Each structure stands twice: as structure tokens, then as C-alpha cells.
């Protein structure tokens, strides 16, 4: 620097006398408003993300409820189990059946099948369907047992 020590000191003395400035009185209000706007904006973005998250979670739940397999309630699981058991019993009964079989039991089975069909037609809930499948299984078990008893009697003759 080519300035002398004395000149530098005089410049520094001048700089020390620089005035200070006061901002406009309304500036703090503007800052508070700007800060509030930013918070609202960030909050809206956060709410948007949370909303999107909730929507995604609901979509997963709806898809699971609508799916034929997978996460089902206890009653739904029972109904499915009763239905599968019923199909197995029906196969067992048909394999062993001797026509015309036990007429009252067959009539009871037909009545239960009509009730089940009507229930499905009106969109009945699992709570209503499960007992009907249980009744059908009992009727099938009865028919199977009856046929088995008859077969045993014929064998003895």
C-alpha cells in the first residue's frame, strides 16, 4: 500500500465516524409476515405429504380388503375355512354315496344350498354366510355317516 501511516490513520478515523442507520419501523412487521408465510407454506407442503401418505395407506387397506385372498377379518377367514371344508366333505360324500341316499338329509342339504344361494344373491356378510356353511357341513357329515352305516350293514349281510 502506498498510503502513509498517517493517511491510513486518518482514513480509519473517518471510517470510525461512519453513521449508523435505523431501518424503517414497519420492517419487523414485514419480517413477521414473511416468516409466517414461509411457515404456512412449509406446513402446507408437510400436510400435503402427510395427506398423500394417508391416501397411500388407505389405498393399500382398500386393496387388501377388496382382494380375494390375503388379509381378511376373523369371520371372513372362518367362512373361507368352512367353505373349503364343505367342498372336501361334498367330494367325500359323492365318492361314497349310494343313490338315492338318506332322503331327509338330502332334502336338508338342498334347503341349505338354497339359503346359501339366496344369501350370496343379496350380498350377505360373512357373519351370515359362516353359519350356513357350518350347517351344510353338518348335513354332508350326516349323509356321509349315513352312507357309511349302510355300507357296513350291507357288508354284514
Amino acid at each position, binding site marked *: *500500500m*502506498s*498510503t*502513509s501511516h498517517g*493517511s*491510513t490513520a*486518518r*482514513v*480509519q478515523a*473517518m*471510517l*470510525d*465516524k*461512519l*453513521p*449508523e*442507520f*435505523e*431501518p*424503517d419501523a414497519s*420492517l*419487523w412487521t*414485514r*419480517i*413477521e409476515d*414473511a*416468516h409466517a408465510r*414461509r411457515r404456512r407454506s412449509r406446513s402446507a407442503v408437510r400436510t400435503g405429504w402427510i395427506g398423500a401418505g394417508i391416501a397411500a395407506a388407505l389405498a393399500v387397506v382398500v386393496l387388501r380388503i377388496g382382494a380375494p385372498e390375503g388379509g381378511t377379518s376373523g369371520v371372513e377367514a372362518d367362512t373361507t375355512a368352512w367353505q373349503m371344508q364343505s367342498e372336501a366333505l361334498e367330494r367325500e360324500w359323492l365318492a361314497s354315496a349310494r343313490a338315492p341316499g338318506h332322503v331327509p338329509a338330502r332334502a336338508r342339504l338342498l334347503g341349505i344350498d338354497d339359503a346359501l344361494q339366496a344369501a350370496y344373491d343379496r350380498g350377505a356378510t360373512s357373519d351370515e354366510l359362516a353359519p350356513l356353511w357350518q350347517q351344510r357341513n353338518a348335513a354332508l357329515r350326516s349323509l356321509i355317516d349315513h352312507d357309511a352305516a349302510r355300507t357296513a350293514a350291507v357288508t354284514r349281510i
Partner: protein
Amino acid sequence: MSSGFGQELDALTLERARRGDGRAYAAIYARYAKACYTLAMRILGEPAAAEDVVQDVFVRMLDTIKGFRGDAPFGAWLKRMTANATIDVVRRNRRFGDEDAEEVFAGMSALEVSGEDAVDAWSLLKRLPPRARAILVLHQVEGYTHKELAELFGQSESYSKSILARTLKRLAADVDGHAGEAEEIP
């Protein structure tokens, strides 16, 4: 420290501000707004631009105060934010001058200081190019090193050294010239 950034912030106000207390925010503004505005004004020389800087700095400070760890004094943290925001304005706007050290003083005629302006430090400062004013104020008044100025301006240390030397030379000539005039007054 010669500016209001040297004021201490009490631990209770800082803690309240960290918790989002609006009154603590207002107390911090009341304590440091003048220092922020003064620094921005001395560099930019325009009240509207300086107010924008203060607004930007305080909004950012309110957003980040929860994460302020207190490694440095609060005022020093705020001063750095203010200097950064102000230099950002200088660098963004071409009306605040060219980046090239040689061009900073181009087109600037002699300060031609006389009369009342000669004794008015602010008038002398306002006549300097904005980048020269920024380097002068940050180095001579706020205590920034050339290394810090290099980081602020994204230039080498020789950039601020060169501009500061020429700025001081001009000011010294004017101050000395005026001193000479004053001595001539019988």
C-alpha cells in the same frame, strides 16, 4: 467490535427463541436490526436493498435458530449471515459493479470532494464503487480477513487486497487534500 453485532444475547432470550417464542424473536430484532441494516446500508447504499437484506437475514435466522449451537457468539453468527446476504446482492446485481478488480474503479472519476461533503464520511464512502465499499467496510470496520473476503466474493485473496489498497489510497488522498484545505483556512 465497533458495530452492534458485538452485543451479547442473554441465554434466556436465546432459549426462548429456540422454542419459537415470538417475544424473544422481537427482542433479538430490537437488539440487532440496526447493526444488520447499517452493515447492509454501508455496502449497498440503498435503503430498499438494505431492508430486503435485513428481512432475508431475519427470516432465515428465525428458521434456523433452533439449530444454532452457540459455538460462536450470536452476534457474530448474525453478522456473517448479513455479510453473506449483502455480498450475494452485490454479486447478483450488475448495477453494483463489475467483478473484475481492474474494472471496479473504471469510469470512476476523481472523488472531487469539497465543502460539506469532505467532512461527511458517509458521502465519501457513497462515492466509492459498491465492491470497493464492501471490501473497505468488511475489512476496516467489521474486521474480516482477506481470506474470509476471498471466500465471500469467490475470488483470490489478491482480489480484495488489490481493491482495498486502491480504495484506501483514494480515500487518503481526499482526506489529506481536505486536511490541507482546512489548514489553509485562516
